[in-house]
């Protein structure tokens, strides 16, 4: 994974650092602004690199629209399905998935972009879904939404994905709470790196944390999954 792909990096701009020092995280700031219904300027999202430059929300905002604070209708494209929701603009993608769509594979742990348990894949990139507002990736006001993939979409017709199967073979999970996040981070990584070294694996999965200490199994699982997927089983 290059540093550009690192989900941590998409979250950290100089503005963020400044806000953190003042005791207000970027996302908290966005939530508060959203909550009071102020028409935020596009600069607020300047540090956001996850989707294409012109997100539907940003376009709406730059056209001077006020979004929220009440619930607004929006459409998410999750695992190839269209999901219509009416939620407050401050709802994170993670909470939208878990609380409104009952897609609970992505886990809520740190809720501020540190641990990776909430990792989903958006437009091909591993993203911390706790650090994205649902509306930022929604189809909104006539503009297309982002392509969101959660772990629920990984199992096709009841058949375990080779990555999940490698996790089982190598016992790369204990309590399993971090596991879906690791599987998705691993998927995003292996989609772009077909022949990874252990050193690359360590870097690629450095944005996910496990408390039970399953990293030894994880290192082996990722390498095994890469071999399986190269063999055309993926």
């Amino acid at each position, binding site marked *: 994974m290059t540093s550009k792909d690192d989900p941590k990096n998409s979250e950290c701009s100089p503005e963020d650092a400044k806000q953190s020092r003042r005791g207000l995280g970027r996302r908290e700031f966005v939530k508060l602004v959203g*909550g009071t219904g102020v028409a935020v300027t596009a600069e607020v999202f300047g540090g956001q690199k996850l989707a294409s430059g012109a997100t539907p929300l940003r376009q709406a905002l730059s056209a001077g629209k006020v979004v929220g604070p009440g619930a607004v209708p929006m459409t998410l494209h999750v695992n190839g399905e269209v999901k219509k929701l009416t939620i*407050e603009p*401050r*709802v994170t993608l993670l*909470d939208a998935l*878990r*609380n409104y769509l*009952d897609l*609970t*594979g*992505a*886990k*809520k*742990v*740190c*809720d*501020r972009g*540190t*641990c990776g*348990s909430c990792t989903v894949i958006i437009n091909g990139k591993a993203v911390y879904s706790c650090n994205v507002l649902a509306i930022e990736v929604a189809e909104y006001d006539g503009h297309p939404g982002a392509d969101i993939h*959660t*772990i*629920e979409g*990984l*199992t096709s017709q009841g058949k*375990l*994905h080779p*990555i*999940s*199967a490698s*996790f*089982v*073979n190598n*016992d*790369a*999970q*204990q*309590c*399993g*709470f*971090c*596991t*879906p996040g690791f*599987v998705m981070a691993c998927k995003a990584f292996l989609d772009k790196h077909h022949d990874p070294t252990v050193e690359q*694996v*360590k870097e690629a*999965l*450095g944005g*996910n*944390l*496990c*408390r*039970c*200490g*399953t*990293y*030894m*199994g*994880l*290192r082996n699982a990722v390498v095994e999954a890469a071999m399986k997927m190269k063999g055309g089983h993926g």
Partner: protein
Amino acid sequence: MADYRWPPADKRSLIGHRISRSDGPWKSSGRAKYSYDVNRPGMLHAKMVLSPYAHAKVVSIDTSAAEAMPGVKAVEIMTEPGKEVLWAGHEMAAVAAETEEQARDAARRVQIRYEKLPHLVSDVEPEKAGKHTVQLSEEADGNPDQALQEAEVVSEGQYGTSVITHCCLESHGGVAEWDGDNLTLYVSTQNLSGIPAEMAQANVVNSADQVRVLMPVMGGGFGSKFAADTWGVACARLAKKIGRPVKMMLERDQELMVAGARPSMYAKVRVGAKRDGTLAGWSSESWGTGGPDAAGGAPNLPYVLRIPDRRVRHTAVLTNMGPARPWRAPNNPQMCLITMSALEDLAAKIGMDPLEMFLRNIQLTGPLAKTYQEELEKAAQLMDWQKKWHPRGDKTPGPIKRGLGVSIHTWGGAGHPSNCNCTIQPDGSVEVSLGSQDLGTGTRTVIGIVAAETCGLPLEAVKVNIGDTKYPPDGASGGSSTVGGVSSSTRRATTKALNQLFEKVAPSLGAKPDDLEAVGGQIRVKSNPSNAIPWKQACAKLGTMPITAAGQRQPGNDNLLSSGVGGAQMAEVSVDVETGIVHVDKLVAVQDCGLIIDLKTAESQVYGACIMGISYSLFEEKIMDEQTGRCLNADMEFYKLAGIGDFGDITVHMMTGPGYDERGVIGLGEPPVISPGAAISNAVANAIGVRVPTLPLTPAKVLAALEKGGAA
């Protein structure tokens, strides 16, 4: 008749093999539903309000503004006015609302007035803590003064480790749902069977039988989840008040502030030896904090190596740092660090290889001396100790200094009370049911292996029911007691059921029930294996009536399990003396735990414990602000856990076979997490030539120790 005793090694088709955990596919595909994932129809979300002060008296609580907030359905006061709060993060009130966002908003509007009181949030030496101390122990064996006076070498030092947290990834909490007077709880717990009584005691229900607890999987406990806690009670009360299901999970900052901390422990030690390394005399004055009370109790020093002449004293420092909970192997990692560090310093003073010193004194370890000897020798071989070890202080040029450290540990791990029901159906299906829980240790898999092995069936042929209080009560999963308990009860229940089946089948094989065995999917005559009937056909002879049998872990001595393990670990580190950064290049863990049921998940326990050990050795510390009395790193950016790239290699070796298997099943969760701190601290001292006195071994502490007087 089938014998309930464990089969000999050559007859085991599943036990002791490397078998993938049975709920693995469920977890790695995201389908496993944790308490945090439970969404019930009409469910509300609740959030707590915590005290911002470390020590204060509650003057008044006004919930009217919170109640008027959009979506709010009810507010529950958790600490009444007039009461004292003893830590920042004390649970004050909980608010339930339609959405999580609304509940969080409303929780901020609960108005609480406090009268601030003085606080202490630093685990200082007892003499500096004023009246905030309780002396917990003072004892002496033999004649320590004389022993230390006559010792040819005496080493003095101060060692310790700070308060750390559990930081379970699934935070504490759950969902409460009422149906009339009956309460269903989906709670993340290590003690499923204990929750109904807890709810009755808190007057949430009239009687415990009105409570059902469901928890198929749970996201980590490590000793911090033995109860539903005040928030579980508040959640159930809110659900009752409103008449709708309520979910309340702790937010991450709350989790780190109040839901689990390991007491700190520090000690001033004097330990003596003869020039040949024979230990003679120990004296220690230790202290630490377990929060506002003396939680954690007194350590038993020195650890493992019982030096006959010793004097120890322990004082608890009562602080407002937050409540302590048992943390994986309570007190043992701290005692181990203090003891093994002191012994390594002593060996260094003598100019002796610490491994040699441990081996010279191996008889002081007691009945497990032979085990320790074998484990130390195995670890030394896997680490290549003889070739790599050098006297204290790596003399090679350049800023990177390498060193080796060693430590040994012990734990009990006998089985907890356990009850299992086994049912064999006429269609051949087998079901075992226990009111137990799988914390991620592999309990579900172990139960399945024992039942399947007993019936001579593949693992997939047995259905394992756990995580529901409708099944027979089972003990709390703590202290490495689960595997012993559930293995025994499952083996006994399944054997009893199988013997009933043998009674039904024997006539058709023209044999006595005593002559039969269940092997490879068949029931057959022991003396004539070709005289056999497939499992399904055998079960068909039951007609319409299933067989059911109960098994219980025998109270007191149970010959399927035992207690008491050793374990040796060695660490190899690189320390950059310019930056102070410590890197664990390699950790070797050699561990016994009696008869291993599943070698794969057993090894995972040890790997995981080593990684958790690296994490607390290098990174973890609950940092308090003395001015405000609050925790400064109640998040996962600054409460640091080791990541996948934060260490080199780990080698695990399980001691199995003759001398080990016949001890029966012994728990494994705690022992391997005890030694990493000591082994890594010793390796750092060996590398840089000076002791870094306390964990975590942060760059700042390493540099400070070097400045004070390092050889490097």
